[in-house]
């Protein structure tokens, strides 16, 4: 699957006017909770991130009870934070005929700057990834080890964790 890089404007600190466009590997990532709720998030593809991280404010929307899940601390650019892990389904689509869904256990945490991080565990570990900045293209090619799941489609359908 090939995705264009997303233009991200940066603004001047003094004038707050746009001065530069950055090209970032941001892709729509579809998330399905066990309750069947589907939510698409803009996720930064980040080879330096250990896990797929989603905002913890989504936990209720996916039907996860407060205090449930496996919790552990982690450190990143934003400092130390607590991450709660839950099993969900993920899906990416380059176009309607080119998509893939899989089972993953991902972290939920307080995130800043980006809505979601598409890191290694649960995400990039299942893909051959290429970044072509010159042509402004991101390539994500599924590996045979990916734990395939049923497509994440509306209307909302609950599913069982394998």
């Amino acid at each position: 699957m090939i995705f264009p890089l997303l233009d991200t404007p940066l603004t001047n600190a003094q004038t707050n006017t746009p001065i530069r466009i950055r090209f970032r590997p941001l892709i729509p990532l579809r998330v399905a909770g066990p309750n069947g709720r589907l939510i698409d998030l803009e996720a930064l593809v980040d080879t330096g991130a250990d896990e797929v991280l989603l905002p913890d404010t989504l936990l209720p929307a996916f039907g996860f009870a407060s205090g449930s899940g496996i919790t552990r601390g982690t450190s990143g650019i934003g400092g130390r934070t607590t991450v709660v892990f839950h099993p969900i389904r993920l899906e990416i689509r380059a176009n309607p005929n080119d998509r893939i869904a899989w089972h993953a256990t991902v972290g939920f945490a307080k995130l800043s700057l980006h809505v979601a991080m598409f890191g290694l565990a649960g995400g990039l570990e299942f893909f051959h990834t290429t970044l072509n900045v010159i042509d402004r293209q991101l390539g994500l090619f599924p590996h045979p080890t990916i734990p395939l799941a049923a497509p994440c489609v509306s209307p909302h359908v609950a599913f069982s964790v394998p």
Partner: protein
Amino acid sequence: MNANEYIRNRNSLPTEYLLLYQGKYVAWATDGKKIIADADGIPELIAAIDAQYPVGTEFVISYVPAGPYEEREPDSLAGGTPFGPGANGTTP
């Protein structure tokens, strides 16, 4: 959802459109042509979508960082291109 269409359309929007939503969580239409809702937090954004649109409405949640957020001289940064026709990337 067609991610290629979504990103291409997002890239064709004027930067000034995004600046209207600085510091907000936003819900993009799945074709990437417009923002259909905005809020200060993700739960509020989802509640707004659920209140305004039919069940099953698809959208993409994103965040527009609050400016100003470029604090270094642009020429010291690798990558990216100056904004706008004729721009030379220097700090006004």
